[in-house]
């Protein structure tokens, strides 16, 4: 809003009214207050916590393990023994869903951390050092954008067949950092020209110290928000691969494999075999996105809540 309204938060003369309060906690508290006011964000936060608790303790609600087959009850409807029913091989869908959620959540968090970290380092380095550094990193980023990432993941999938599922984390992260890196680079270009960074440079502060001390904290809001939204994106990518049969494979399960399994029943009377795992996936992404948008609004004082991504 550019109408010259007086600044309601106009610096009141706080000086001379006693010793300073700790402002670091003040800022955190401000962000928390703004976040808490956002109903959807709070729903997301509470929801995600509950989903986590469910994913890691829900297994105790059933005596079936995900890989176990109940040959007596195949394709059974939800019952007290099989809460979400069983598939044609007699797998307990409840146990499978819970176990799949665990894997999906872990992969989501790890991929987001790895790709956001990579993006942060490459993006700031490119923008801060400029010149050939910048040219090289931008070219590299462009190359990864041109390489169709999902196709590449599928192509490379035979490599991680039969190995530990954790290999999916670096693989997905490898194709997930480019957009964030571009945004970070753009923001760094602005922050770099800010006068406090110039001042530090003219004082003789070393470059990496400037990046660590001044630049990263000032773009931390975008990194936090991107981390959150990357969690959702990573879970979707992993499930996508697993759904097509190129990601996690038996005996391991993820939400993707469970949904794939269930989707064959989507057009039958056993549609619940699809609906339960799908609903949990949707819930996770929904909560994560609510939190991400809530954080964006809370961290960015100028955000109107309508900004698009």
């Amino acid at each position: 809003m550019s109408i010259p309204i007086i600044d309601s938060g106009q610096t009141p003369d706080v000086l001379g009214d006693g010793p300073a309060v700790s402002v670091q906690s003040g800022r955190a508290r401000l962000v928390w207050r703004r976040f808490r006011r956002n109903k959807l964000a709070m729903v997301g936060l509470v929801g995600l916590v509950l989903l986590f608790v469910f994913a890691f303790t829900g297994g105790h609600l059933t005596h079936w393990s995900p890989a176990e087959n109940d040959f007596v009850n195949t394709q059974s409807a939800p019952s007290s023994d099989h809460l979400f029913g069983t598939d044609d091989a007699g797998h307990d869908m409840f146990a499978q869903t819970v176990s799949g959620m665990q894997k999906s959540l872990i992969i989501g968090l790890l991929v987001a951390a790895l790709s956001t970290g990579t993006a942060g380092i490459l993006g700031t380095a490119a923008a801060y050092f400029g010149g050939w550094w910048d040219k090289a990193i931008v070219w590299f980023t462009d190359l990864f954008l041109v390489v169709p990432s999902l196709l590449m993941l599928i192509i490379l999938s035979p490599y991680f067949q039969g190995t530990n599922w954790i290999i999916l984390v670096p693989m997905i992260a490898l194709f997930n950092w480019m957009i964030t890196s571009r945004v970070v680079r753009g923001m760094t270009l602005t922050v770099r020209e800010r006068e406090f960074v110039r001042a530090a440079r003219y004082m003789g502060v070393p470059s990496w110290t400037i990046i660590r001390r001044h630049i990263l904290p000032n773009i931390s809001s975008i990194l936090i928000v991107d981390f959150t939204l990357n969690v959702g994106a990573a879970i979707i990518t992993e499930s996508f691969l697993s759904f097509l049969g190129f990601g996690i494979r038996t005996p391991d399960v993820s939400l993707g494999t469970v949904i794939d399994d269930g989707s064959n029943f989507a057009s039958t009377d056993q549609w619940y075999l699809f609906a339960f795992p799908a609903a949990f996936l949707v819930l996770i992404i929904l909560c994560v996105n609510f939190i991400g948008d809530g954080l964006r609004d809370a961290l960015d004082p100028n955000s109107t809540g309508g900004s698009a991504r």
Partner: protein
Amino acid sequence: MSQNDHLLIADPAGRPGPGSARTGAPVLSVQDLHVTFASEAGDVRAVRGVSYDLHPGEVLGIVGESGSGKSVSSMAILGLLPDNAKVTGSVKLEGRELLGLSDKAMSKVRGKDIAMVFQDPLSALTPVFTVGDQIVEALTVHQDLGKEAARKRALDLLDVVGIPDPQRRFKNFPHEFSGGMRQRVMIAMAIANDPKVILCDEPTTALDVTIQAQILEALKNAQELTGAAILMITHDLGVVAGFADKVTVMYAGRPVEQGAVDEIYYRPRMPYTIGLLGSIPRLDESGEHGRRPLTPIEGNPPSMVDLPDACPFVARCPIAVDACRASEPELLPAGPNSHPSACHRRADLESGTIPVDQVYPMPEIPEAALDTVPRAQRETVLEVKGLQKHFPLLRGAVFKRRVGTVKAVDGISFDIREGETLGLVGESGCGKTTTLLEILELVAPQAGSVAVFGREAANLSGRERMEMRKDIQIVFQDPMASLDPRMPVGDAIAEPLRTHGWSADKAQARVAELLKLVGLEPYHATRFPREFSGGQRQRICVARALALNPKVVILDEPVSALDVSIQAGVINLLDELRAKLGLSYLFVAHDLSVVRHIADRVAVMYLGRIVEIGDVASVFHAPSHPYTQALLSAIPLPDPHKERERTRILLPGDLPSPANVPSGCRFRDRCFKYASLSEAEQKKCRDEDPTVVARPGREDHATACHFAGALEVV
């Protein structure tokens, strides 16, 4: 050029004196206007009871600092405030109440009877439509004009406001216009339907001073043509002095003093007005050496949420008494022959019990020990020779390519001696900031040399360069941007110390010392920048710059982002520190009044070159380069009498781009002197690039003009 020719030398007359107060029915009458915004912190009472009458052909100046409610009150008149604003009171246009009208009814008034010129011409025009179409739209919204008729009228309007070659410019987009040209387009749209009132919200604040002079002239012409009344909102007391008939001074959402322009300037009856007038550095300061210290107004304006029933100025007022804390004063005349003011002590000011010039204590600025040493005997601390910085000019989003060279700095030389302040002045794009940044890099420039204490920056090793950074420090323009918002100010001040190997304990002690030095308290060290006001932040930046005991401090427009009343305090602080610590300053500014006040020597830049350099007295009293003369003459003085008597030199055209430097003398295509020269002389200006040569018979005064001649313009 038809229009610009007659604008060249403005006519100082043609403006009725202050005695000619209009009588008869006002065209616009605002009574007891209140605006309240609902906000998270509570209701913000932005405007609290504004009343005035505006008669046809009259100019009312509304003066106030940021947050005083001056802009909000004008937006309220037009009904363009956001939905969370509550407006009460009365706004009558020729007797017809405007408040409460529907958007449909107000649309018939906006742009027709009341037109508006906004502050920022960069963003005020729709980027995707041509300038011509936007003017045509302003016409056809209110008038039933055919396409061709509207076009013809729009072309006329472009011509009237002084846009050369209207036929061609009609088809241009806003981004192809300079700031001044866009503001002319805004004026053209404003006068398109012969309005009765034109609201101008800081119309020249975003513009350079020579362009400001042009725009004010265009506004005057527009007024003469339409006979409209003008409401001029500004923070600049100089602009109002020469332009307005009446003045309303606003503070904390209320008018605190109202009257004819001469009354306000020569007989102020409210300490805030008195303080404002005393805190502006003036171009017309007399005296070769006796610098008049500025009288700053201490403190900051109050928050507009939950104002107590007391004078809102009480915390900053040097003559406040108990009554001032007990109730808010009403706007009443101080005496039978006086104008209204809102001050409990107005009677004492009126009677002279408290002399107006003694309301504020005169600060003491110590004399520097070095001031008595002749310049020639002092050490040279910074020497710049033939410095040059050219940038490639890039164009194209899809196919980025180099299409030319920006000659930002094109060979400039100057030196600064110990304990001396050199003011570097010029308008935007003249290369003054680039000069600073090039010096601070402390590396070999593209051409020329930079030497600190006689040591060439080009020959330094990394270690030596680091060492040298201790001696040369900078204070930036925007104190908000130059402090990391996430770092406590104590850490910010300690950063240079820690970088240069001070221990944490030693640094902490030094931070406390520095905070005291700049007028803050040691316990402020743990606070964050946003808890401080602009002036205080700038003090923190000064403290940081002084941490390592530098010899030279480079000041890049250090006060231009601050309100006038705050400015004065920072200027005084800089003056005091220079004397106490024996510092040398390179003071970059666009405001010649500030430079006049603080500098010993001044260098005037134009398009990457220094066109005139010398001691302050010489350059300001006998400017010899036509550009300096025009620049000085364009600055409005906060003195209505002087303003009315001054003859202003108006430069034609825009500031040229450093990507497109004319041959020979780079000022010639805007030079008023050039026009009066003979053909042979003009040829010299076209062909020969003038160098900076000493003025004959002057000790410290040089200029780059083939036909230099002194001219008193202030």
